[in-house]
């Protein structure tokens, strides 16, 4: 199967907010809900509903990973996965497992019925963000468009890597 990566498929519909200023988890998640809702205004969920769902998930345990990266997410009744990429001007405390402050956020809104695609997305995001050089490039982005363009490049490179790893000979 020669198909684009799950992340690459999602990027044309993704939204970004580069170098946003938020001093708290609450403000960050409010902004996330706003831009996800703004990208899909036809959705049955309001920005307030999305914010509540995202906060509820954080209360179960922080979605911070490591190296300043977090993946706030929630499951709602919607048709397709929605992605917002947000970077912060100044990192905030997000209760990460490694104690590092967090400034790179991948916000995922996932349909309730969806079982495996989010795992593929998380795997691709983790693969990209495990690489320190990639994290530096993400932090160097200055505009929303830069951020989305960078991820188009990184997701394509990531897909090439997995092909080389032996899933398919071209």
């Amino acid at each position, binding site marked *: 199967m020669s198909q684009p990566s799950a992340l690459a498929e999602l990027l044309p519909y993704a939204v970004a907010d580069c170098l946003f200023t938020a001093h708290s988890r609450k403000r960050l998640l409010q902004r996330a809900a706003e831009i996800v809702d703004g990208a899909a205004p036809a959705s049955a969920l309001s920005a307030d509903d999305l914010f509540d769902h995202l906060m509820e998930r954080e209360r179960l345990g922080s979605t911070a990973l*490591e190296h300043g990266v977090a993946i706030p997410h929630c499951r709602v009744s919607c048709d397709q996965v929605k992605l917002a990429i947000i970077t912060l001007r100044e990192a905030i405390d997000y209760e990460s497992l490694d104690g590092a402050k967090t400034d790179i956020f991948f916000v995922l809104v996932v349909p309730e019925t969806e*079982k495996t695609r989010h795992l593929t997305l998380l795997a691709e995001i*983790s693969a990209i*963000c495990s690489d320190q050089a990639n994290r530096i490039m993400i932090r160097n982005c200055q505009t929303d468009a830069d951020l989305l363009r960078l991820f188009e490049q990184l997701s394509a490179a990531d897909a090439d890597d997995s092909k080389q790893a032996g899933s398919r000979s071209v």
Partner: protein
Amino acid sequence: MREANRTLINPLGLHARAAAKLVDVANKFASQQTLTFKTKTVDCKSIMSLLLLGAPVGSDVTIKAEGEDEIAAIAAIVELIDLGFHELEDS
């Protein structure tokens, strides 16, 4: 070195919350612990590495532990996986 093979039984597989629970358990032990799925082997103490596996329900995984408390470490991880990361009742 201790080793065990298991199958993931929770419907969402090794998603973010499950991976965080695995890191919590792994961090209780001094031993080095790894999880292998398909061709990838990762450190059980790194959530980003665990998510990188993208392991869904039904995945056959291998757990390895090496160190002074390897027996207890393997037992604790096997228990967490066999209990479906404590999420069988609510998913």
